[in-house]
């Protein structure tokens, strides 16, 4: 094997993903001594499918996508690395600045936009926590829509296409930092409790030696090192840590109770 094929769930626009990935790819190429190729995808399910059929070797998955991949491959995918931030991830509910809604309860009867149906932070966990708050997304909203990506959700709400929406905290923070004009038009009314999210997963039959090399390469990154800092900022990671499949059991439970997996 001469090329390591990598992909990522399209929780942001493909150009953004490509931009984020380029330095990381270069770094990995150097560390593991092998060509790394990034394939952008626009469909969450396609990433799972490609991983399951061996078309890609490693992917950046969300918590829920990982659970899906695990189920699809009968646990033959291995999560290896995640960001320190992914241990306590949250989602933020947003409404337009002018909206009078103050709590989740007030969102009943409104049009609501999720990210992608396969997104952990843009759909599964918010749906789960909405359920905990006594709101059934299918019945209690006037209409629900799926924007497809977190930044698109903000755009939906900012433009008035939907009266409320939800996205992950990491993207939200980035939008606020970069003074995104859409972000200025909306406000956060609620934040979910923390849960596990994104990780880097490899397919189970990848050469263990290679997996080891990749893991080490990630762990070696240090935000104090200026050479690594740029790369890690792009990933919005302060530190990379190892992870294991059981970290995502709670997400699997949430998915089951929300009826998203059978």
């Amino acid at each position: 094997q001469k090329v390591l094929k990598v992909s990522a769930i399209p929780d942001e626009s493909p150009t953004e993903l490509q931009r984020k990935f380029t330095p990381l790819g270069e770094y990995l190429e150097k560390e593991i001594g092998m060509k790394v190729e990034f394939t952008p995808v626009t469909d969450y399910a396609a990433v799972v499918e490609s991983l399951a059929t061996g078309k890609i070797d490693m992917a950046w998955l969300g918590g829920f996508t990982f659970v899906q991949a695990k189920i699809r491959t009968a646990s033959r995918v291995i999560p290896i690395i995640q960001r320190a931030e992914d241990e306590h991830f949250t989602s933020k509910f947003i409404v337009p600045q002018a909206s009078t809604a103050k709590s989740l309860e007030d969102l009943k009867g409104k049009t609501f936009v999720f990210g992608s149906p396969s997104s952990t932070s843009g759909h599964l966990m918010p749906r789960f926590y909405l359920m905990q708050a006594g709101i059934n997304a299918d019945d209690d909203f006037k209409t629900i829509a799926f924007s497809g990506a977190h930044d698109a959700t903000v755009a939906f709400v900012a433009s008035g296409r939907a009266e409320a929406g939800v996205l992950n905290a990491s993207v939200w923070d980035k939008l606020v930092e970069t003074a995104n004009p859409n972000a200025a038009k909306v406000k956060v009314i609620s934040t979910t409790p923390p849960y596990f999210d994104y990780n880097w997963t490899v397919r189970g039959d990848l050469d263990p030696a290679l997996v080891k090399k990749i893991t080490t390469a990630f762990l070696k990154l240090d935000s104090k090192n200026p050479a690594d800092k740029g790369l890690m900022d792009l990933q919005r990671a302060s530190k990379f840590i190892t992870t294991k499949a059981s970290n995502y059991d709670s997400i699997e439970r949430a998915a089951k109770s929300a009826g998203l997996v059978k």
Partner: protein
Amino acid sequence: MNRSPQPQFCFKCVAIFLVIILFFGLSFWWIEFNLRTLFTESAVSSAVTFIQRFFTPDLSYKFILKIYDGAIQTIAVSLLGTLLAAIIAFFLALGVKPASPLFIRGVIRFLLNFLRSVPELVWASLMVLAVGLGPFAGVLAIALHTTGVLGRLFAETLENASPEVTNALLRNGTSSFLAYLFGTLPQVSSQFISYILYRWEMNIRMATILGFVGAGGLGQILYYELSLLHESRASTVIIAMLILVVAVDLLSSRLRKSNMPANC
């Protein structure tokens, strides 16, 4: 009789044929289309396993009920959108006939081209702003785009209709609008109907895709279930769509064959 008695070899035919072949060849070359990759072992096996998963449609009562609601909404959105478009297009197409003033023809042609060049998905996002998320936006989006399409198809069908029949009416002093109704329309009505019905069928599919961006209906269910890798449920949705299309197809052939006791 002074006629040009010349058997011409149809060089033009051959030239056009070659140009078309070249054009298609270039296209395949550009996208690096490779037949062999189509049938690699892994592709075939993954196709088989993938398709297999679709073979156990989810027929639970609750899900069927959900599909039923979605199907009704899809039908409503596509039918109303198509009808609205057909009515508008019917009148616009009139304005494009060779006899009408050049200016009017130009304006209508441009309008039709514009309506049609903006894809439904784009119209949909615009209409969502205009009337809010929901099926009505879908109706409008479909109507706008379909008006452009049907307007063009109608106009071209009209051009092909035998002018003799219409001229016969014009020559006994009939106004051009009535000549259209009594002379041209009966000739083209079956073609019009088949275009409308066929477009309706397309719009059922389009309503599906609009569902992907939030206009509800079967599409949203399909998108959702496909994203969640619930192939068995997705296949139920696909079956429902097939049933809709079959129904429209049957209706279409019925309507075209029936004597349509219209004045057509």
